[in-house]
């Protein structure tokens, strides 16, 4: 069964304290891994897409990497405005439906 697991569930950082979020996946055939940011009461906001192992994407203080079994979202020198829930999702298998399997998310709190 396809599965996506994110860790940790919650993470508290001091402003400027760099860290990484993990997304482990077990899928029949990876067709894309997606990272989203979700603020309370809002819909998820798309951050990155990764399609193959070794691929990396960067945006401001965020950097996403991908291996054959997991993805990391590295946060460098975070600021309080980076506080949010970060969701990982994978698209797998055959067909053209675009169905994504989501992880439970990591809730990040950055304290000033």
């Amino acid at each position, binding site marked *: 069964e396809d599965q996506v697991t994110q860790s940790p569930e919650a993470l508290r950082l001091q402003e400027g304290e760099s860290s990484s979020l993990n997304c482990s996946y077990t899928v029949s055939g990876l067709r894309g891994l997606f990272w989203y940011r979700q603020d309370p*009461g809002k*819909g*998820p906001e*798309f951050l990155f897409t990764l399609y193959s192992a070794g691929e990396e994407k960067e945006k401001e203080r965020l950097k996403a990497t991908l291996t054959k079994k997991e993805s990391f979202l590295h946060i460098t020198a975070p600021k309080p405005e980076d506080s949010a829930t970060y969701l990982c*999702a994978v698209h797998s298998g055959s*067909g*053209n439906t*675009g169905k*994504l399997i989501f992880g*439970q998310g990591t809730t990040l709190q950055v304290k000033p």
Partner: protein
Amino acid sequence: SQTIHQWPATLVQPVGSPLSLECTVEGTSNPNLYWYRQAAGRGLQLLFYSVGIGQISSEVPQNLSASRPQDRQFILSSKKLLLSDSGFYLCAWSVQYNSPLHFGNGTRLTVT
């Protein structure tokens, strides 16, 4: 640019009442459309997806239904709400099956 509109933002309905949530997309043609539900503290669960007008696929057996009367309009309905239907409902669209999903800001539904 493409935008997605979802309404209402919040809704309180009694058990047994009907439901209609609407979602429209602007700035693109023939998008894939999705309805997700996010329960508190849980990941996103795919409810329905559509690859074209009148084409609806259901992922989870339940008392909800979806319709796509126009290319960029997606409606989530129920004839009789249950307490377990409470949650955060999100509409999303994508260009094609392996491209990122873009979400609306959701509807918070409380069934009392």
